[in-house]
């Protein structure tokens, strides 16, 4: 009998020791008469507790032995905003729960991977669109100069239409306007829905092409007339002169404005978020609906855009300086 009691007592001791070590709250109803029990919890856990400025453990915690009265309870966790509450502790059970918010910096750090994922899509969309735009724009730009009225007219129509209408409208025209047309052509009138990625890429490429066309046209026309005359007087054809004399010189002058076009497209591509393209801006919208923290989210988006445009701005300025000396 005695042996059994001893073993039981040791078991209880070990149990209690384990409890204290784990910092687990004691089972409910542990408050003795005239005693106070204060349970402090936080989400997330692991915040340091201060009662009237004195350290009092780490959440979740059970604090005993406070005399009844009013206390300033404060919880602090690195990367989270410190919170405090004035609390009246009465005899018996008391409970307080803090919901901790990340500091702005930590929040922005945490959403950064998501934003960067969006930024990669933004960069990808922009790079492909401007690349397509350069191909379209080179033809359209030359089409504006060539001495064939009909070609001039078509090219001018394209350039003026695109430059004279908002990119947003162009995106809608392709994403929402095209499906019924495609449907009536290929699917007995049932609209053919377009993939947002396809719509975005098409709209941005066509848009970029028009701006690049103007850059190419200006670049070619900025080459002195004498260059064309000298080439032609050697017996070269118009296209030979273009290829070997005019274009090589025009390309140098066209590179800086093309860089600027890239930067502009980087920013304007944000408009494709409206058709659900998951680029930087769309990613941010999704994040905000989840976190309700628009201020830091959009600030973060701005910073990511700046991180992308700033190096290119510097690059363009450097190119401008370099190409000027070699002209």
């Amino acid at each position: 009998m005695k042996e059994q009691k001893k073993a039981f007592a040791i078991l209880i001791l070990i149990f209690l020791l384990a409890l204290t070590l784990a910092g687990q709250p004691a089972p409910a109803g542990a408050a003795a008469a005239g005693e106070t029990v204060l349970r402090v919890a936080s989400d997330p856990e692991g915040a340091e507790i201060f009662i009237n400025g004195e350290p009092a453990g780490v959440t979740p915690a059970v604090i005993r032995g406070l005399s009844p009265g009013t206390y300033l309870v404060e919880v602090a966790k690195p990367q989270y905003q410190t919170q405090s509450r004035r609390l009246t502790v009465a005899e018996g059970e008391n409970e307080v729960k803090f919901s901790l918010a990340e500091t702005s910096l930590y929040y922005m750090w945490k959403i950064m991977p998501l934003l960067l994922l969006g930024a990669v899509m933004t960069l990808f969309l922009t790079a492909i669109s401007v690349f397509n735009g350069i191909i379209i724009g080179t033809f359209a730009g030359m089409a504006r100069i060539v001495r064939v009225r009909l070609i001039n007219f078509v090219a001018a129509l394209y350039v003026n239409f695109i430059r004279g209408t908002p990119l947003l409208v162009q995106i809608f025209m392709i994403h929402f306007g095209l499906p019924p047309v495609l449907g009536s052509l290929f699917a007995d009138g049932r609209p053919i829905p377009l993939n947002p990625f396809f719509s975005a890429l098409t709209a941005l490429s066509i848009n970029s092409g028009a701006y690049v066309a103007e850059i190419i046209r200006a670049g070619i026309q900025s080459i002195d007339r004498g260059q064309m005359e000298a080439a032609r007087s050697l017996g070269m054809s118009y296209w030979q002169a273009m290829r070997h004399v005019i274009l090589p010189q025009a390309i140098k002058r066209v590179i800086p404005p093309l860089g600027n076009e890239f930067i502009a497209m980087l920013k304007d591509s944000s408009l494709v978020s409206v058709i659900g393209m998951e680029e930087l801006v769309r990613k941010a919208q999704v994040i905000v609906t989840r976190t309700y923290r628009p201020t830091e989210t959009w600030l973060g988006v701005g910073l990511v855009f700046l991180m992308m445009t700033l190096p290119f701005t510097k690059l363009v300025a450097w190119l401008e300086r370099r190409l000027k000396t070699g002209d």
Partner: protein
Amino acid sequence: MIRVVDLHKRFKNLHVLKGITNHVKKGEVVCVIGPSGSGKSTFLRCLNLLEEPTAGKVFIEDVEITDHKKVNVNRVRAEVGMVFQQFNLFPHKTALENITLGPIQVRGLSEEEATERAYALLDKVGLRDKAHEYPDNLSGGQQQRVAIARALSMHPKVMLFDEPTSALDPEMIKEVLDVMKDLAKEGMTMVVVSHEMGFAREVSDRVLFMDDGVIVEEGTPDQLFNNPQNERTKSFLSKIL
């Protein structure tokens, strides 16, 4: 060699050439002088169709180059060398590349062959050591000599010079004129629009005096400079000599 019949050129309302008729013989050096705005340059540019004549005919070696149906303009220009007032060298190409571009692209020469010929031409204008320089690194006189070599690279039948020394500093004029004199001595047919009366007097076989879109007077340098018949010629010469 070059026959011009009743050549007219209008720019919208401006009647620049009012009926020019002339004949330049093979090996002849003809200088065209006259006040600015008289149509000298336009006349010259009509000879390789850089300007399209409004009316009249131009024959080069009995081929009517103003006949669009029968004539390939590019072929005509390959046979007529042109040197410009502003040189118009290709700034993105070296002196050598400026000279080889035409032969390679238009004549279909191999690069080695074109380069070999280009060096010979650079020797001729005294600029072999500048072969790999870009035009920006050459003086005006050197640029114009390269431009002459470039025009010669096509082995033209005629050379046209459009005020070749007007954009040059005085000390560089001589080096360009010397190259032109050598060319004249070799028997090249040349039409030169110039303000260089010394050159006209010394080198040319015939001088044309143009004013207001017509050839007012023509003759040997001796006739024209020492014994001008027309009042306008006299007054022009009295101003510049």
